[in-house]
């Protein structure tokens, strides 16, 4: 087996951050997506939105400078950048639902080749899953990128033909960034546009639950 090195969570976040141009308005979900905030290249203005009514929040404060009134949707203490603003929850979701964000980056339990996203409930029998703002973000944002490990801890594929978990929204995912590859969702197919060094098509396919298309050269 050819050696390859999968991305750390931090490197995955940095890989995503690279693709976010200046001036975009972005909502980052809990987990790996949250790490994207700290990975945005210095000097590039990307404006972060938080469901609980913030545009333009900045990095975590120093421990001795925590402002108890200022948290993001992940309940983490944050700061506010110059030009940031506060609004109430209905206005915050008007921004989301109205399609004003450029991008949201979400975690996932599963993503299907048709763009279906499952990231909220772990089974249809779970009658008390926490949906939060995931459905609104998935439905309202013009670009939905998923940031996830390529497989579960047990090695089961998270990129699948059809989601088995309950959907967050059908047909919304545009791109998936995993620790192994960057994969576009196009016309019902996963199209691999980038792989980590040393990874083969076969090795990636073997960890994926649906047939991949490749726009990258085979490992040479």
């Amino acid at each position, binding site marked *: 087996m050819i050696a390859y090195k999968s991305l750390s969570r931090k490197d995955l976040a940095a890989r995503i951050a690279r693709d976010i141009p200046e001036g975009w308005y972005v909502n980052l979900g809990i987990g790996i997506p949250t790490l994207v905030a700290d990975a945005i290249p210095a000097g590039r203005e990307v404006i972060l939105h*938080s*469901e*609980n*009514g*913030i545009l333009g929040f900045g990095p975590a404060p120093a421990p001795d400078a925590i*402002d*108890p*009134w*200022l*948290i*993001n*949707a992940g*309940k983490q203490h944050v700061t*506010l950048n110059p030009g940031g603003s*506060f*609004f*109430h*929850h*209905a206005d*915050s*979701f*008007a921004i*989301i*639902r109205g399609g004003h964000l450029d991008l949201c980056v979400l975690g996932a339990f599963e993503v299907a080749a048709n763009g279906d996203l499952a990231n909220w*409930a772990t089974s*249809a029998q779970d*009658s*008390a*899953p*926490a*949906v*939060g*703002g*995931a*459905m*609104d973000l998935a*439905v*309202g944002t013009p670009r939905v990128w998923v940031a996830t490990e390529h497989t579960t801890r047990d090695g089961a594929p998270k990129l699948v033909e059809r989601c088995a978990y*309950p*959907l*967050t*929204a*059908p*047909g919304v995912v545009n791109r998936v960034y995993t620790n192994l590859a960057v994969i576009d969702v196009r016309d019902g197919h996963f199209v691999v546009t980038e792989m980590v060094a040393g990874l083969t098509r076969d090795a990636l396919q073997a960890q994926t639950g649906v047939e991949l298309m490749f726009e990258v050269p085979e490992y040479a």
Partner: protein
Amino acid sequence: MINKEVRDIADALSGIEDGQVVMVGGFGSVGQPDALIEGLIERGARDLTIVANNAGAGRIGLAKLMEAGRVRKIICSFPRSAGSVVFEELFRAGKLELEIVPQGTLAERIRAAGAGIPGFYTATTVGTLLARGKESRVFDGRTYVLEQALHADVALVEAWRTDRMGNCIYRESGRNFNAVMAMAARTTVVQSCGMVAAGVLDSEAIVTPGIFVDRIVVVPETANARIAEAGAA
């Protein structure tokens, strides 16, 4: 002279009866009217329906209210979270009804109630389990579901500064659901971190005009923090 400030928490909560729908502002612990929640527990009203983003954490605040057996139903977006032990216990035991509403739909249903809009359409939940039983409709080739206004008997709100007319401003991410819930209830009770004279708040920056507010009780920020800490201890 108009003066919406009341003497104490008990006065602020008078009239809350068994079976009512009570909205509770806040997101996480920020902007949560802890003193009013404590007061609601003391008041003893039962069979309540609570509308809030979360279903409580630890054994304080909303969780304490639920543990005391006062809540029949909770309408929220994020019931199960780190520390939602009381919710889990009661829900598993079948002692608590749950209505899960996506966060944006929850905020908009509350705003709709305040704005005299009985129903609206949203694409959120279309094609998911949460659309079950909902009426759908196509606009311009896209499918949406019908959602209905969510009214309350009482809204419990935390504000940063208030004046005797009921005008409120919030602080940073403390605004969250508070400003929409203030619109949606027959009676809106504000736990204020401090009163200022009428005219002190910037007319351009008032978030909740006094028309939405019925009663104000002052609970200094430090006192609210003590309640939260005491409960957590």
